């Protein structure tokens, strides 16, 4: 997914040195501390590169997962760090532990079909203790994708199945977004083909799920440092073979996670904010470490064809790199704050034109609209998706809904 677009690539390379400098706020990225977790942008689980679909702009970490209340644990690497979702999901084939299933009040097993625009992932919820840095989330419900015991995918769980490491592009995903539950009020009633209850491993029914039973953001289950996260990555000039940084838990809870001069961009109930780009006001914009590029509408920038004749189908491919800027303002509680971002879009095909590894590409971008045969642009989605390239060289804060911080209640992003 995030990287498969460039799946035709056999090899990639490092155009420019891997960024090693500090963030835009001029501080050194902490690498030690009870709330500091190492994160990496690299080509992903080995099976991705060997199958010709190495990851690009995908942020990973390692999570320790344990049988609840025991010291029977397993470290799982290459878990994608995602500020665009909430909750921990693991691809079943990388899991060696036997974890208990999560049941509803009627004793039926809870399962979930999590939908993406290009497919869906299916499996039951199982309970585990989760350890990241020195933080622990006990008895957390974890979505086990592709679980061997639950291979009957319900009809409503439509779309291309993304139940394997190669299809998913990671060994799992750590959703540390601005919301407590993964779905929220939209899943409290049945009919959304998202939460299911199962009377057997093969008989699962679309069901409403109370908020308290939904998959939750692991950060909110920590005893401390539980009001949000910061992702700190060094600047990247053009491309890099790998990037190392930190995922820091808590905002203003320790000496290493203060907001400083970061600008707070408040979010609406959909997690959206507004981007002003050229003459467009894009009110459904979002910041998302789980998106592998900048996605925004600009019919003046040439795109690569959406087929296998290019190494970057559908991405922006300008003949020469273009320097652009957008201004972000919050959609939530009005605070009069806006933040301007300068960025560069380069020829995506050119970024991957040699055989060296390219896991990070700071100038990768794609349209969030399509252009029809008659030349008119579909603009139904007023969105600017600020993906992982935004994070290079910035400390980006995610404050969780209903959690207090020194800058007020979440949800917000700040940088």
């Amino acid at each position: 997914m995030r990287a498969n677009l460039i799946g035709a690539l056999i090899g990639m390379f490092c155009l420019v040195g891997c960024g090693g400098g500090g963030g835009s706020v001029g501080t050194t990225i902490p690498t030690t501390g009870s709330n500091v977790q190492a994160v990496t942008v690299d080509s992903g689980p080995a099976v991705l590169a060997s199958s010709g679909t190495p990851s690009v702009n995908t942020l990973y970490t390692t999570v320790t997962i344990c049988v609840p209340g025991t010291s029977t644990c397993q470290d799982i690497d290459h878990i994608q760090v995602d500020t665009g979702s909430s909750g921990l999901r693991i691809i079943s084939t990388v899991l060696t532990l036997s974890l208990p299933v999560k049941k509803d009040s009627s004793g039926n097993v809870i399962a979930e079909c999590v939908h993406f625009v290009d497919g869906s992932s299916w499996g039951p919820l199982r309970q585990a203790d989760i350890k990241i840095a020195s933080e622990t989330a006990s008895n957390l419900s974890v979505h086990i994708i592709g679980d061997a015991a639950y291979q009957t995918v319900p009809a409503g769980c439509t779309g291309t199945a993304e139940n394997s490491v190669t299809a998913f592009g990671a060994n799992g995903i750590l959703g540390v977004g601005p919301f407590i539950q993964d779905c929220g009020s939209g899943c409290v009633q049945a009919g959304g083909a998202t939460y299911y209850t199962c009377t057997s491993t093969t008989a699962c029914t679309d069901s409403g799920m109370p908020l308290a039973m939904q998959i939750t953001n692991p950060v909110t289950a920590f005893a401390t440092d539980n009001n949000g996260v910061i992702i700190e990555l060094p600047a990247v000039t053009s491309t890099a073979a790998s990037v190392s940084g930190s995922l820091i838990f808590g905002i203003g809870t320790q000496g290493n996670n203060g907001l400083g001069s970061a600008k707070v961009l408040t979010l609406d109930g959909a997690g959206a904010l507004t981007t002003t780009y050229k003459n467009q006001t894009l009110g459904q914009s979002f910041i998302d470490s789980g998106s592998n590029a900048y996605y925004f509408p600009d019919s003046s920038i040439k795109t690569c064809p959406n087929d296998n004749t290019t190494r970057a189908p559908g991405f922006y491919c300008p003949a020469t790199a273009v320097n652009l800027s957008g201004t972000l303002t919050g959609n939530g509680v009005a605070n009069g704050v806006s933040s301007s971002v300068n960025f560069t879009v380069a020829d995506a095909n050119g970024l991957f034109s040699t055989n060296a590894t390219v896991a990070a590409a700071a100038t990768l971008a794609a349209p969030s609209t399509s252009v029809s045969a008659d030349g008119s642009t579909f603009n139904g989605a007023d969105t600017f998706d600020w993906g992982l390239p935004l994070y290079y060289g910035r400390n980006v804060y995610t404050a969780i809904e209903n959690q207090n911080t020194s800058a007020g209640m979440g949800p917000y992003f700040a940088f």
Partner: protein
Amino acid sequence: MLGWLTAGVLASQSVCLPALATLGEDVSTVENDRMHMKAQLRMTSVAGYAVHEIQTPANTIVREYVSASGKVFAVSWSGPLLPDFRQTLGRYFDDYNSGASDPRVGRRHLTIERADLVVNSHGHMRAFYGNAYVPSLLPPNFSVADIK
């Protein structure tokens, strides 16, 4: 089905006409969608086509664009959950599914451009939006930019 001849007038009615549908099918199938989604229906008409708007219990808005000849030529959606594509895309569902496996631009953005089907789909859980249309069924002089 009175609506689409109300040329030039954006008439909005809170009515429950039997009026929802599946992409590429007749307008009569609109009601199937409404029933399937346990949704509420609102209908607006503009020059040359009508828009049937369904709101699901999860507050996802699905709009179905119906031509003067009674065919659903486009659908759009916006809301916390994706609509049931097997229902809303109908005979085009398999094309959508195979198109989603083609070279693409990531898990949160999908564009499918085929001769008989165009799909734009964006977002993540809690915030999905997109549209699908059949180029050969578009009314004369219709701009896809009007699919909202």
